[in-house]
């Protein structure tokens, strides 16, 4: 049981990790992330990279949808912008990963701002569909602007390089993806300690009173769109470098829904929620597959019969989670934590 946490200064009080225990845990977590690729199988390493990319993108969407309350179905499109930018740069320039990724993020952010323009007038599902429209436009551009995007065939990338080191395998990509994911998560966490983040939340909770309290709505809505798309663009760029190929079908609409599902299941308006959701959505299908693999040697028909069942179980899990805990995994986590903080007392 944790008893008290008296602070000497506001700085200490506002720190992200307010207790030594938390700091130690976080340190251990970072260490684990660092050690992981040395121990993991290629499969786990691959999944870890996927999770890292998903975490970045989900966090971006969470900034927009979870924190600012603007529902977006355009996440896949924004990721596509990042991915295609990076792919084009890889083919036509010799830029190293950081500037290329940054360019992907910025271009995506610029388009995000453009897409966000209607957000002052339309809200809720109408806005969601407006972003869906944007995503369809982007998809069309990916498909048809063949000289730049390679049309339906897409673009194949050369391996990324950073400081002259080629990043041609998952192991090396991991050391780009994970640190970037951690940094971008911290950035998002920081954001909500400042006026900008507070403005986002205020817009979500009650945009009209936020305006009267001095927050220019359009500016901040666009900022949220831009930032969210920046995250998406970075994730898309990493996605492109990771798979070394981008096609229009790399960024389907179902991907946008995937990320929306991730933040809802994880917990909207919670950084941790975005992370948990991304992990959940990426890993649960794999875990369910594991079950099939275990059975197969004894029951050769298992894959054929059980594979569709996975879709059912996956859907049912989402529904059940939402019915029993509409605030998502983050809320469940919080409850568990409180339980242990107060242990052995009950709340």
């Amino acid at each position, binding site marked *: 049981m944790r008893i008290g946490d008296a602070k000497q200064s506001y700085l200490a009080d506002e720190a992200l990790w307010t207790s030594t225990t938390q700091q130690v845990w976080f340190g251990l977590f970072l260490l684990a992330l660092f050690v992981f690729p040395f121990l993991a199988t290629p*499969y786990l390493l*691959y999944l870890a990279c996927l999770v890292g990319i998903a975490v970045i993108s989900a966090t971006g969407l969470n900034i927009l949808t979870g924190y600012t309350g603007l529902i977006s179905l355009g996440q896949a499109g924004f990721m596509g912008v990042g991915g295609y930018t990076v792919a084009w740069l890889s083919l036509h320039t010799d830029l190293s990963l950081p500037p290329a990724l940054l360019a992907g993020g910025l271009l995506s952010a610029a388009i995000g701002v453009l897409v966000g323009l209607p957000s002052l007038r339309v809200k809720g599902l109408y806005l969601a569909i407006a972003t869906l429209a944007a995503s369809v436009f982007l998809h069309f551009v990916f498909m048809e602007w063949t000289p730049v995007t390679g049309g339906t065939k897409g673009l194949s990338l050369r391996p990324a390089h950073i400081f002259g080191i080629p990043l041609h395998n998952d192991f090396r990509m991991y050391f780009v993806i994970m640190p970037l994911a951690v940094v971008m998560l911290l950035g998002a966490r920081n954001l909500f300690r400042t006026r900008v983040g507070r403005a986002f939340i205020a817009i979500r909770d009650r945009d009209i009173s936020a305006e009267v309290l001095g927050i220019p709505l359009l500016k901040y809505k666009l900022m949220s769109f831009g930032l969210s798309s920046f995250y998406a663009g970075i994730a898309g760029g990493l996605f492109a470098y990771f798979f070394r*190929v981008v096609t229009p079908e790399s960024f389907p609409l179902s991907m946008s829904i995937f990320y929306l599902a991730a933040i809802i299941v994880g917990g909207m308006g919670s950084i941790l929620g975005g992370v948990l959701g991304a992990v959940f959505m990426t890993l649960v299908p794999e875990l369910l597959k594991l079950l099939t693999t275990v059975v197969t040697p004894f029951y050769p028909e298992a894959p054929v019969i059980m594979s569709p069942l996975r879709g059912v179980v996956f859907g049912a899990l989402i529904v059940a989670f939402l019915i029993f805990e509409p605030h998502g995994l983050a809320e469940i986590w919080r409850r568990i934590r409180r339980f242990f903080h107060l242990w052995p007392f009950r709340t």
Partner: protein
Amino acid sequence: MIGKLWQQGRRLAQAAGLAFALTASGTAAAQSSQQEPLVFGGSIPLTGVFAFAGIHIHAGLTDYVNWINAQGGINGRPVQYVMEDTGYLVDRSVAAYKKIAGGKPPCCYYGDSTGFMKAIAPELNAANATIMSGASFATAITDVQQHPFQFIPGPSYSQMFSIILEYIKSQAKDGKKPTVAFVCSDTEFGKDPIENGRAYAKKLGIDVVEEIVTKPGSVDVSAEVIKLRRKRPDYVIFHGYILSPINEFMVQMRQMGLDTKFMGTFWSSDKLIIEKMGKDADGYMGVMPYNYFDTEDTGPMLEAMREQARKSDPKQAYRPTPYVQGWFNAMVWTEVVKRTLDAGKPLTGENLKAALESIKDWDTGGIIGVPVTVKDHSFPVGRIYRVNAAAGRFEPVSDWIHLD
């Protein structure tokens, strides 16, 4: 139907029960064998948009591996088939590959989509341990520079178009220039052969009077039919579809009194078309690199395949083309591995590639009716079949056409 549902349900319940029992009791028993088994891996779409084929591909691969093991394996080494469901999603396919490659590295691997083949190519090139083929007949795979360790288990989509166009040219009478229309789905898959098809038609002196691209999932195609009605092409070549909207095009255009002939590529030439369309399917033609399961041709391998299929599921008299495709993939792998082992070389990607490229006038035991030669990592061979709806089967209307 109800009976079938019931049966499905029961099988499901059994499987689920078993699953629980097994997760509780632990992992699978180890297979005992004197020799290190060879691994055939696969990213198989048992769910998702391609599941209809994936299920049969899976059956074909499974049966082939059981058969070859019954034959004593490859040069005495048993074969182990390891697969994962992908839902036809690229990232899942890659995950499956990594998972499988992380165990015993597979020497041969089935990839379920063009997207996957492209995404995995760099990895594959770096690993230099696996040769890969699969469901994709994409023209891009024939680029040996980019895809050194991948091949197509038949003609590429472009080559299929070429074969079809060759056939059309052979049918032309009185020196009249035949006219064709391409109808393709708006996907990478659908658009793959258009460019080459156009060029090849020009070379053969065939007029491409219309190119129609349809959106997947659009409700109806009557607008496209109206367009074709004005062009009155002699032939319509479908590509990028399984079933719909081919039936609509055919029925509607025939109702209008057009005598257009309808043709399709590999994935559009399964017997599914006859089963679902009934007598409307009559006269539809498809290009097929393999013999149909129920062909009148014979050959030792063909017999072996039928025998094995009967053994694994006696209730199914017929096996669809994806089954044959799966079987043929494994056959090529076996051939390639065997040639490498026979040469006393280790099973590296380079050696497997060399073995593949050495295939010349290869007798497939009846699966393909003529000896085949690998060109640009593909088997540019095929034959035109036409639906005889009354007999419920595809019947050959041309000889085997081997390009070049």
